[in-house]
C-alpha cells in the first residue's frame, strides 16, 4: 500500500435544517427537525502518493473544501470511505491529527489575542513537539518565510500577507506528513503569492510531505502541481497530468500576431479561426501539429510585425472543462 490518501466513492450530503425565525421557532424546529439534503460531493474517488503535490480545481461550490474537510476528519462521509495514512479521518485519533495539517485561507487559525510566537508555543504543547524539534523547525520556517520582524506583534496587527505566512508556519511546526491547503493564497498580492508558492514547493522537496492544494489562482497550480484533480458540481471530471489536461482539452495553440497594417478578420480566417481581433493585434487558433506551417503561410501573405506561438491559458482550458462534463473514466484513459 503506497498511497497515503485513499478516497473511495465519497459522497457527502449536507443536512440543512429548515429553521423557523425567532427563539420559539428555533425551539420548534429543534424538536421537529426538518432537513433538506444538499449533495456537495458525489461519488469521488482518488489516491494520492507520498510526496505528491496535487492541485484541486473547480468553480465555487464545486465541493473542494468539503472533500478536504472529509480528508482531515472534520466531516463524516455520508457514504464511501476515506483512508489517510492508514487512519479513518473522522475518528480524529490524536496520532492522525498530529500527522496532518489544514490551512484555510479564509479562516483564522492563530489566536487574535496572541503574538505568533505565543501561538507557536501553544501549538508546540498541543502537538507534543520536543524543544529541539521546535527550535529547529521554527528557525527554518522563520528564515524561509522571513518571519523575524512579525513574530512578536499581536496577530491582529499583522497585514493579511504577514498573517498568512505566520499561519503557514504555525501549521507546519509539528512536521505534518500531509498538507491540506485550502486557498492559501487568497487575497495576497502577486509577490506574496509567489513567496507562498516557493515555500510550499520547497517544503515538499525537503520533507517529502504530500500536498493537496485548492486555489482559484491558476498560477498557483501551474507553479506547484504536476497532477490536478478537477471537480465540478461535486463530481470528479478530471484526474491527471496538468500537461495532459492541456493537450487533451486544448488541441489548439494560440498564434498571436502584431500586424504592421490593418487587415480584415476575413483575410486572417482563411488560415485559421480567429479567436480575437483588436486593432493591430489578433489571435488565431491553430491545431498543434500545423502551427509552424500556418505561421509561415501567414508570414508570407500578411504584413506581420511580430508573431508568437503560445499555449492556451490554463484558466481557459479548465474553465471549458467546467462547462461540459464528460464521464470521468473516458478522461482518465485519455490522460494516460
Amino acid at each position, binding site marked *: 500500500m503506497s498511497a497515503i490518501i485513499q478516497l473511495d466513492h465519497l459522497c*457527502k450530503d*449536507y*443536512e*440543512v*435544517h429548515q*429553521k423557523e425565525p425567532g*427563539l420559539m421557532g*428555533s*425551539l420548534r424546529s*429543534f424538536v421537529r427537525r426538518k*432537513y433538506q439534503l444538499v449533495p456537495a460531493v458525489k461519488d469521488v474517488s482518488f489516491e494520492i502518493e507520498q510526496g505528491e503535490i496535487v492541485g484541486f480545481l473547480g468553480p465555487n461550490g464545486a465541493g473542494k473544501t468539503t472533500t478536504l*474537510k472529509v480528508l*482531515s*476528519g*472534520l*466531516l*463524516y462521509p455520508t457514504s464511501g470511505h476515506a483512508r489517510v495514512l492508514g487512519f479513518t479521518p*473522522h475518528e*480524529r485519533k*490524536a*496520532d492522525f*491529527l*498530529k500527522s*496532518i*495539517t*489544514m490551512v*484555510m485561507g479564509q*479562516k*483564522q*487559525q492563530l*489566536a487574535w*489575542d*496572541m503574538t505568533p510566537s*505565543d501561538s507557536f*508555543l*501553544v501549538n508546540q*504543547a*498541543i*502537538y*507534543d513537539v520536543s524543544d529541539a524539534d521546535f527550535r529547529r523547525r521554527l528557525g527554518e520556517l522563520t528564515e524561509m518565510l522571513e518571519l523575524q520582524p512579525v513574530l512578536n506583534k499581536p496577530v491582529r496587527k499583522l497585514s493579511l500577507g504577514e498573517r498568512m505566512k505566520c499561519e503557514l508556519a504555525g501549521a507546519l511546526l509539528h512536521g505534518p506528513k500531509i498538507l491540506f491547503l485550502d486557498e492559501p493564497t487568497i487575497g495576497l498580492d502577486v509577490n506574496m503569492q509567489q513567496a507562498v508558492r516557493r515555500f510550499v514547493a520547497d517544503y515538499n522537496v525537503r520533507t517529502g510531505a504530500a500536498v493537496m492544494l485548492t486555489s482559484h489562482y491558476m498560477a498557483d497550480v501551474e507553479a506547484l502541481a504536476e497532477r490536478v484533480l478537477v471537480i465540478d458540481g461535486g463530481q470528479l471530471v478530471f484526474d491527471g497530468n496538468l500537461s495532459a489536461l492541456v493537450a487533451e482539452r486544448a488541441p489548439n495553440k494560440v498564434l498571436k500576431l502584431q500586424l504592421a497594417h490593418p487587415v480584415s478578420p476575413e483575410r486572417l480566417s482563411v488560415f485559421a479561426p480567429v479567436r480575437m481581433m483588436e486593432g493591430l493585434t489578433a489571435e488565431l487558433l491553430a491545431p498543434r501539429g500545423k502551427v509552424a506551417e500556418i505561421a509561415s503561410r501567414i508570414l508570407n501573405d500578411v504584413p506581420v510585425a511580430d508573431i508568437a506561438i503560445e499555449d492556451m491559458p490554463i484558466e481557459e482550458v479548465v474553465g471549458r472543462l467546467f462547462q461540459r462534463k464528460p464521464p470521468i473514466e473516458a478522461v482518465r484513459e485519455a490522460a494516460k
Partner: protein
Amino acid sequence: MKYFKLIALFIRATVQVQLEYRSGTFGRAFANVLSSATTLLLLWAMFQQVSSIGGWSFDQVLVLIGIVTTIDYVVEIWLYPSLSKITTYVQRGEFDVLLVKPVPSQFLVTFRYLQVLDVLGLLVGLGIIGTGMYRTGSLEFINFALLAVFLVAGLVIIYSLYLALSTLAFWFTRIEEVASMIWLHSTAGSFPVAAYPPWARLLFTFVLPVAFVTNVPAEAATGRLSWEWGLGGLAFATLALCGATWLWSLAIRNYSSASS
C-alpha cells in the same frame, strides 16, 4: 503535564491582553466589594426583624453570601470569558480550527480565557466566608477541607450548566438569551434554600441547583452538613459534568455531520 503547560500559556496570553487594555483589575474587585456590601446591608436589615431565616443565623448566611460572591467571581473571570466564546466560534464557523487539534476541544474552550489578573476580587468572597466561619466558631481544619471540596463541586455544577447551555449554540443561533440564566445562582442562591416554599425548594435543588452550588458549601463550612446532602452534592456534580460532556460530544458529532 501538557495540559498544565497549555493552561499556563493560555493564562499568559489572557493576562497580556488584560494588561494591554488595562481591563478591569481593580475596577472589578471594587465592583465585587460594592455588590457584596449591598447584599450584606440588606441582609443585616432583615435580621433586625427576625433572628433566623430558614433556620440559618446571620453569621451562617454570611458564609453563604461569601460563597455566592466567590463563585460569582470565578464565573466572571473564568467561565464566562471562556465559555461565552463558543457561540462566536460556532457562528463564525471557526470551530474547524479547534477540531483538527489533537487535544479535546472541550479542554480548549474551557481554559482558553482565564483572567487570573483579577484574582484579587476573590479575596472579597473568601474574606466574607472567613468572617462568617470565625463568628460561628467553625474555624476548623475539617470544615475548611469540606468547604474546599464542596466549593469545587459547586463550581463543577455551574461549569456543567454553563457548558451545556453554551453547547446549545450548535443548534440555536441566538443562544445569548438562554445563557443569561447562568447568573441565577447568585440571585436565588443568596438565601438559604430552606427559606423558600416547598415547590421553590425542589426547583432550586434539582432544576437550578443553587442548593448544591451555594447552600451545601455553606453548610460544610459551618460544620452543619448532613451526609445525605454531601453525597447528593457530589453525585449531582458528577452527573452534571458527565451530562454536559456527553452533550458536548453529541454536539461535536452533530457538527461533523454538518448540519448548519
